[in-house]
């Protein structure tokens, strides 16, 4: 579903992402892990077609992100790190707006009803998005990102600053979407979430340090290490 080939992004002298390659299969929950500033967000933005790679490319849902970034946009869902919806619009209005941008005219009602139900927002449809709790905001953002049934969804640190209960609900929804064939790419720096991924990639200073299932990654670094230990070790090795 996704194939990154030697993705590189430089901002002036700084190389934010340095020759990253990986493949992600259909319906996988794929984690991109790494400390702040390791290039997770930059990688995701390049995969979404909103940032042009300095070199390399990626094929996302059969489309080349360098050659046709606009075609990528119609086939993916994206949820930015900061809450990116309109705080002065209600839950329903936000859903209707994004349904419209994704080209849904008459069927928006049906899709919005689906999103409200699967994101568990039944009690909040008439509330302004700005007044929602952190967990509700995050699920609304996910709802807007999957309205148009994209085969690939990118979530940039979706669970940052959300309480543990809301995080658990959110993961249930992610697993549910993946079980129906949606490929989910999620960045995080919460190590306790790492075990939830089908496969994961460690990024540090823009370079790919390890790729595989949680068990494989653990095995590669030593059987008795937790993912958290590996995370810390990788970071220390860099410094």
């Amino acid at each position, binding site marked *: 579903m996704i194939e990154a080939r030697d993705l590189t992004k430089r901002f002036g002298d700084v190389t934010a992402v340095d020759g990253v390659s990986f493949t992600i299969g259909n319906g996988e929950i794929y984690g991109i892990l790494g400390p702040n500033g390791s290039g997770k967000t930059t990688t995701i933005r390049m995969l979404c077609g909103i940032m042009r790679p300095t070199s390399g490319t990626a094929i996302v849902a059969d489309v080349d992100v360098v050659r046709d970034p606009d075609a990528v946009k119609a086939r993916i869902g994206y949820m930015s790190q900061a809450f990116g919806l309109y705080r002065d619009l209600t839950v329903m209005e936000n859903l209707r707006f994004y349904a419209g941008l994704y*080209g849904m005219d008459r069927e928006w009602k049906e899709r919005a009803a689906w999103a409200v139900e699967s994101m568990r927002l039944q009690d909040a449809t008439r509330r302004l998005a700005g007044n929602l709790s952190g967990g509700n905001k995050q699920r609304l953002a996910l709802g807007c990102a999957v309205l148009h049934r994209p085969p690939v969804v990118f979530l940039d640190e979706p669970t940052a600053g959300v309480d543990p209960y809301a995080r658990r609900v959110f993961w249930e929804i992610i697993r549910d979407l993946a079980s129906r064939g949606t490929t989910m790419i999620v960045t995080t720096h919460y190590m306790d979430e790492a075990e939830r991924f089908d496969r994961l990639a460690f990024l540090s200073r823009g370079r790919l340090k390890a790729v595989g299932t949680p068990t494989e990654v653990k095995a590669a670094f030593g059987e008795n290490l937790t993912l958290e230990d590996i995370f810390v070790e990788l970071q220390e090795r860099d410094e």
Partner: protein
Amino acid sequence: MTRHRLKRIAWKEFIQMRRDRPTLAMMLGIPIIQLLVFGYAIRMDVRHLPMAVYDESRTQESRELVQKLEATDNFVVKRRAPSYDEAVRMIDRGDVRAAIVIPEDYARHLKRGLPATAQMLVDASDPNTSQNAIAAAQLVGQRRLIEILAVRAGMRADDRPPVEIRVRPLYNPALKSSIFIVPGIIGMILSITMLIITSMSIVREREFGTLEQLIVTPVTRGELMLGKILPYALVGYVQVTAVLILGRIIFGMPVVGNVGVVYVVTFLFIVANLGLGLFISTLVRTQSQAMQASYFFVLPNILLSGFMFPREGMPPIAREVGLAFPLTYYLQILRGVLLKGATFVDVLPQTGMLLVLATIFFGFSVVRFRKQLE
């Protein structure tokens, strides 16, 4: 570009506009307040200048002179000065703006046929005001002179003078500045609100983080820009209508020409200003920068367009800079159509220039706005 996406963006802007009560109140309240303030306050025609009188002559003739000055409506006697120095001091203090000094021998000289002199002191710190006053005072003197010469030449005092230039003021016979000002206010208010509000709109999306979510959707630049300005264009039309109606009721502004022409041309003017606002929006990073950049355009717009000062009196450079502002052409069209009854054909050159500027500004902003985040 799909009509559906365009409609949805305009719909969203409308909801946001409706919920932002202070801004909405400003957009609708400002035109009315400015109309009243400018309509009543801007008086190019200075009337009733306070005047002091220092009359040493104290005669029938000297009183007549003061009366004649007052009869021009340019002066009102506010003070009697006991001495010349005191008259000057009154002007210094700002108690009066002019003083008439009539010497002791004024009536005597007049009767004997000798040159009779009276002195007029005018506070000329404001050239506009003083020029009017000076002209009025000179006119009074000349009229008196003609009367005397006519008698000497053997004519009776009420005979017609041999030469006379009759001035007939066209379009605004009462020479009221408020009538001239109202069309200007329409143009000024439109350009201020359109420019400031749209210059904030893209930046606001950037500041609130909503732009990032927006550009991962298939929405195009044109759809986004056009969808954003449509609701504000509607606000612009509401403003024009409000000022036209109030200008007519309160200031009795005549509408000689076809209002339909005004409404058609207004569309081009609005698009030009919205385009300029969007362009600013793509140049700046924060809402406060957008605000400052807008003022950078608003001030020269008002000063160089002919709203305040006649463009004919400007140095060539200022006049040419003014040609880059849509307001310059729009004002000519408004004044032409509303006050003089100009037809659409009459204002075609200015309309053409508005079209050119609208295309340039709007085109620039679409090119500048990148859908890629860098």
